Structures are given as C-alpha cells and as structure tokens.
C-alpha cells in the first residue's frame, strides 16, 4: 500500500511556468501539505471531429523534475480533469491506456445528463465543478446517493472563492446543495490556486468549510481522511486486481490480538477490490513492485489500519 500523508491538496492546475509551479509547491510545503496533485485539463466537448486515434486522452506531462526536487517534502500525483457534455466519453475512457497513467481522474460535467452519468456510471474518482459554468448544475438526490455509494467524491475549490465575489455566491450555493441533498457526504476541498497568494493553510480550509455547511469533523476530513480514501480508490481503479505477496524475513510470532487485527485488515482489502468489478482481472508484470516484505508481522497490520 502506498503511503501518503496529510494534508492533501488534490487540485493544483498545471502551469507551463516552472518558476510559478515551484513557488506554489514551496508555499504548499510551508503551509504543511504533504500530498498534492497537479491537474491537467482535457476538454472532450470541444473536439467533435476527433480523429480516430486509439487514444484521445493526452499523455501525462513529465513532472519528474518537480518530483525529484520535492522528493522528501511533497508527494506529487497527477490528475486529469475531463470536461464533457455527452455520454460518448465513457466509450473512449474504456479503451484508453493513457488514462491509467494518471493517479486521479476527475469528471467535470457540463450538462444535466452528463452530471447524472458522472454520478452513476462514470469510471473516475472525482466530480468537480467549474466555477463559471457549473453554477446552474445541481445534483439530484438519487444521483448523489448513488455516487456516495460508489465511493465517488465531490470536489469544492476554494481559490475562486477568494478571488471573486460572484463565484463566492455560486460556490456557496453548490456546497449547500450537497448539504440539502445528502448532508454533505463525500466532499473534499482543494485549492485550484493559480498563484501562491491564493493558497491557504489546512486549518484555515477546515474553518472555511463552516460556510459550506460542513460540520467541523467533515471539514477536517475533507482535507485529510477523505482524500486518503479517494487516493486508495483511484489506485485500485488504476491497478485493477493484483496479486500481493507478503514475505517474512524473520520469525513470525502469532499472538491473539494481532491475528484478529489481521483478519480485519484483509476484509478491508477485499472490500476495496470489490469496488472495481468492471476492471478486467489481470496480473500485471509490475506485481513485484507491489510486493511488500514484512519484517515485523506484528507491526504491519497496525500501521495499515492507521493509515487508511
């Protein structure tokens, strides 16, 4: 299981200007974030006359330099946001290889039909809204419940809130719609900031969630625990079903307490795998990388439990 640490910011728009991107990352480190996702946007609705290429989605941008630079300070993920209007995107997503290279896939629907599709059958992890166009889209109760059950998360971006008064009203409206429809379940808050000045500290964001109608607990989870859940879900979608080997390199001591915890842990793993039933069962070559050699069998289950 890959380790990630709180706090999370899952929306930092990609910028060609390396200097600016570096400045944003530095600010994020200062504020105490540990895991961030760089966002790339792909507009499906514009491209009506797409050439019949095998893959319409772009390759992820090479961010190796950035990842190397912030190696121990920040974990940098990559995320693709797909803006779309009709359901046709689902087919393209089904046989795309590039999509698997992204850590997170978010959908940004433009119409009501697309929004319902996004909540019910979309093969992504996150539903997001554009501050300008999304203001008139309201999720209905049923679609929202389905989305929560499927483990899809809804995103609220706070940086347009700081910049512009009109967006502020719209975003508060959207956020309260979630509250009315289903008590603001499964909501994460991310920045979407294009310059360092728009970033806020994690505790500020948790406090800000008060005006979104979230409770104190939900506000804190929105930048910490839910993001971890989202990451795990995204990872299971990306990898599909995999084989995991657990090797012991020392003598194993079985005690009552640890074995019961172990069972719980396995149950959780199974549940995770059940979520992506659409995924083809496959045995990737990279299963070696998933291999975890466990030195101390007593410690490991505890650790996993705490992280997830």
């Amino acid at each position, binding site marked *: 299981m890959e380790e990630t640490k709180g706090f999370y910011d899952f929306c930092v728009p990609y910028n060609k200007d390396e200097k600016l991107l570096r400045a944003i990352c530095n600010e994020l480190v200062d*504020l105490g974030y540990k895991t961030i996702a760089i966002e790339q946007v792909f507009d499906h609705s514009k491209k009506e006359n797409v050439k019949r290429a095998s893959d319409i989605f772009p390759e992820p941008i090479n961010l190796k330099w950035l990842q190397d630079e912030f190696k121990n300070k920040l974990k940098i993920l990559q995320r693709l946001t797909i803006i779309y209007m009709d359901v046709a995107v689902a087919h393209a997503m089904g046989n795309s290889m590039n999509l698997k290279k992204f850590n997170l896939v978010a959908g940004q629907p433009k119409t009501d039909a697309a929004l319902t599709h996004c909540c019910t059958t979309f093969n992504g992890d996150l539903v997001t809204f554009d501050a300008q166009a999304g203001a008139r889209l309201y999720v209905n109760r049923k679609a929202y419940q389905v989305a929560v059950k499927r483990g899809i998360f809804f995103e609220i971006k*706070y940086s347009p*809130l*700081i910049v512009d008064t009109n967006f*502020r009203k719209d975003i508060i409206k959207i956020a309260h719609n979630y509250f009315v429809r289903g008590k603001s379940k499964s909501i994460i808050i991310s920045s979407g900031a294009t310059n360092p*000045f728009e970033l*806020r*500290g994690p*505790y*500020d*964001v948790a*406090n*800000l969630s*008060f*005006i979104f109608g979230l409770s104190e607990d939900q506000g804190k989870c929105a930048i910490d625990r839910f993001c971890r859940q989202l990451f795990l879900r995204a990872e299971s979608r990306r990898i599909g079903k995999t084989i995991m080997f657990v090797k012991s390199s020392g003598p194993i001591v079985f005690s009552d307490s640890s074995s019961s915890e172990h069972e719980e842990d396995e149950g959780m793993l199974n549940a995770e795998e059940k979520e992506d039933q659409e995924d083809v069962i496959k045995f990737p070559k990279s299963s070696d990388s998933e291999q975890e050699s466990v030195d101390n069998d007593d410690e490991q289950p505890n650790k996993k439990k705490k992280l997830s």
Partner: protein
Amino acid sequence: MVRVKNRYIVVRIAPKNTSLSSLYVKEQVLAKCILNHVEKYYGVYGVGLLEHGFRVKYCNDRTKIAILRCSHHSYKFVTSILPLMTSVGDVPAKFNTIYTGATIMQCNKFIIKHQQNFLDRMVGQVVSAKERQEMIKRVIEFDTS
C-alpha cells in the same frame, strides 16, 4: 462557578510582498478590518454577536503574529472568514490561522514554541553574528512583553 468562555485565535499575517520585514498594523486597524469583513459576509447579525467580547489582544509588527479574542459562541464567524480576507488596512496580505485556544496562557505557550521552531529554521540562513543576535532578540521579544 461558571465563567465567561472565550476563544483565542492565533493568526500569522503573511503580506503578499514577502520582502517586507515588518508590518505596521495597529490593533484598532486590525480589529476594524476584521469587523468589516464579518459585516460583509454575515451582516449585522454577525457583527452584533461578535462585538460582545471581540478584541485584538496582541499584535507584533516584527513577527506578524496576532491574537484575537472572541466569545465562545461567535468565534466561528471569525475563523471562517479569515481565509477570505486579502488585505489588512491597505496592505495586501493573507491570514494563516495557526492555533485556536481557550486560554491565553496556552496561546502564549504555543507562540513561544512556534517562534523557536521559526528561529531554528532561519538562524542558519543569517550570515553575520550581529544580525543573528538582533533577529533572535526580536523574535523572542514576546516573552518579555
């Protein structure tokens, strides 16, 4: 006995222009600025609730740390609008909440710890000994006040 419950919010004011070494904000200006913002977002009702017991207890120019006191049932109005503020007086700046406590003693303890952390990071970067002395003095000056 039942006492009046307060919340103390410790904020760090981060000016947009990071090269600014000190920030001259008077306590009244800061208080007025926050009240204005509360009025902007929560209207007269918010200000009415907040004004009872709201006070800027401490504001340091050099370290840019301030302590705000609010009554226990209205502090959420302040904490939730702090991220939305983009200026203090006429200086563009953002607020960074670093601590919320129930007594001012806890806040003081936290600030001292915070400043020591800050010093540990910064002292290495200052070259001359005299500057270093001065910096330590002005960061720790909180203890005496």
